[in-house]
């Protein structure tokens, strides 16, 4: 459905997109994950022909995407990172205006606007102006303006930034519902939990290129880390630390502020082995955590830095 090949975009000396290539299939919720400045928004802007790019090709629905390919644009809905609505118009007027950029039949538009209002749960705010809406409701209005015309492809660029948890859940559920109704979704975010929760396939971006892509499980399998164990321990000597490093399946040990963090390859009984060792050394310990790898671990292992750096 979407084919991006070798996309290069430069801002002077800065390379924002470095030979980016992507393929997105119809019916997917495709997550574009990366830290701030990794090139997610630039990729979206190029995809929508809002930005000229230096090199590469973009095809959407089998057609080359150009600024005047209105047949393709007709089937795309966008929800931008910042709320893009008119402060002077009411909720209903805003949705009607943006829907009117795609749907010219007045009666059909009326139905779609009503449907979008119901979908985002703004029934009680039809005549309310955006300034009087809370942050979460405003985000919902922003989404309604982008999806009212029932597009085949919906691009959501960090739609949950600065949104309270309740509204965030409502928005994420809405996105999954849109996908069930037949829309393909491209979802950019730097919140790995969101991407992990809703996306069927994920591409991790850094420095303007895709460094890994696949389903969540596929991505997790790509890395060495199978389990991360954290132990609150008191006063470990260098010899004891070396013993721990020598335990089977342990490949990384970190000890700081009396907190011991071990990364182990995927295997059984890792936790039991470390606890046995601590007992054998008569070492007292507090809380113990064992976590399976997250996308943050994937990102950390691939790039050597935290996702939110």
């Amino acid at each position: 459905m979407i084919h991006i090949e070798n996309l290069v975009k430069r801002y002077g000396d800065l390379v924002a997109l470095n030979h980016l290539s992507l393929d997105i299939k119809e019916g997917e919720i495709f997550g574009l994950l990366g830290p701030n400045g990794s090139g997610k928004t630039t990729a979206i802007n190029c995809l929508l022909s809002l930005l000229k790019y230096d090199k590469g090709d973009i095809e959407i629905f089998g057609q080359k995407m150009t600024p005047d390919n209105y047949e393709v644009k007709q089937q795309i809905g966008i929800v931008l990172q910042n709320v893009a609505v008119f402060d002077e118009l009411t909720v209903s007027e805003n949705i009607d205006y943006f829907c009117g950029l795609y749907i010219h039949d007045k009666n059909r538009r009326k139905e779609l606007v009503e449907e979008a209002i119901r979908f985002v749960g703004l029934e009680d705010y039809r005549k309310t102006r955006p300034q009087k809406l809370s942050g979460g409701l405003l985000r919902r209005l922003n989404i309604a303006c982008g999806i009212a015309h029932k597009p085949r492809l919906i691009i959501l660029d960090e739609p949950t930034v600065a949104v309270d948890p309740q509204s965030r859940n409502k928005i994420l559920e809405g996105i999954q519902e849109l996908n069930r109704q037949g829309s393909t979704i491209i979802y950019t975010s730097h919140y790995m939990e969101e991407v992990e929760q809703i996306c069927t396939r994920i591409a991790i971006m850094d420095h303007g290129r895709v460094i890994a892509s696949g389903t969540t499980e596929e991505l997790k399998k790509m890395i060495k880390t199978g389990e991360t164990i954290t132990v609150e321990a008191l006063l470990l000597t260098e010899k004891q630390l070396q013993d721990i490093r020598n335990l089977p399946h342990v490949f990384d040990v970190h000890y700081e502020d009396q907190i011991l963090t071990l990364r182990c390859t995927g295997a059984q009984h890792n936790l039991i082995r470390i606890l046995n060792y601590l007992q054998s050394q008569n070492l007292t310990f507090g809380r113990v955590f064992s976590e399976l790898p997250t996308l943050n671990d994937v990102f950390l292992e691939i790039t050597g830095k935290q996702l939110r750096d």
Partner: protein
Amino acid sequence: MTVFKGYLKILKKNLGMLLIYLVIFFAIAIALQASARKEHLGTFEKTRINVAVADRDQSELSRGLIRYLSTIHNVSEISSEPSVMQEELFYRNTSYIVQIPENFYQTCIEEEEPLSVTKVPGSYTSFYVDQQISTWINSIRTYTAAGFSLKEAMDASMELPASEVTMYKGTENNLETPPYIYYFRYVPYLFLAVLSYSMGYVLLAFQKEDILKRMRASAVSLRRQNMEGLLAMFMLGAVLWLISVAGVCVLFGKEFLTSPLIGYYVLNTALMLGIALSLSYLVGIFVKNSNMLNGISNLLSLGMCFLCGTFVPMSIMNKSVLKIAQFLPVYWYESINETLAQYKTLPVPVAEEIWKSMGIEAMFIAAFVFMILAISKYKQQS
């Protein structure tokens, strides 16, 4: 026509402000019209002054003089006591006191002694009364010398012809200033204030970066979006122009509609509208927030109108200010109005001057449009 309707919807939210400007404009126009008419009448009104007469003679002749003066002024009789006369003058109950002596005929007609009068110092109207009394006495003297009886002389003197005043005009076509000239003088303020505010208000909404992005990603072409936006602006301008032309027709009716120069006034106003539209759009591109919009809108409308003779007639403005004002479009609009006000029909050289000024107005419009296109293109590319 979604974009067009969107512009109109946002303009509609601003309707209150537009109405306030229109009400203020028409209130000023009506007040100026009323004041202009009043001033016009006052300039040529024949005035009567208060004249007091202390008649010591109480003769037929002295009563004749009182009767004659009564036809021209408000005459009252007072005592010949000096203190009474001083008091009347001090309190300005009277402006001129005539003391008719005993033996009035003998003293003033035969022996030609002047009448004793007391008047408010420096009063120019007293000179007229001096002349009127002198003319009457000379007339009586002439009639009696010719053999007429005193009664016949007094009757004839009552019908003395009034002096005629002939007004000389500067040029053959120079007429009274038409009252609607004040209305047209204020039109630039209405256009600039309303358009710079309302267009800035709409552009402020549509020029937001994220709104622009959303619209550019939509299925309506950028060209069509621009055309629909411009159409909405032109419609606002056209409505404003129609209101202003309808306003002058309603307020001044036949006086304006029968003027042979009506076409020039209307065309000049249309050009002024073009200037206000293009300039307001140009300024609107740079507006970042509503506070800035208020400031720029006031600066543009009030500043330009003060400098270019909208609020103060050009004839009393400083020459160096007028030289600077020539770089502003409103100056040319106002100079055309000032010229039109002096003529009932235009001699060819004057008409040529007016067409030249209109050409300069058109060039201002072209320059503003060119700047809008250049800046818009630059903004799009960046």
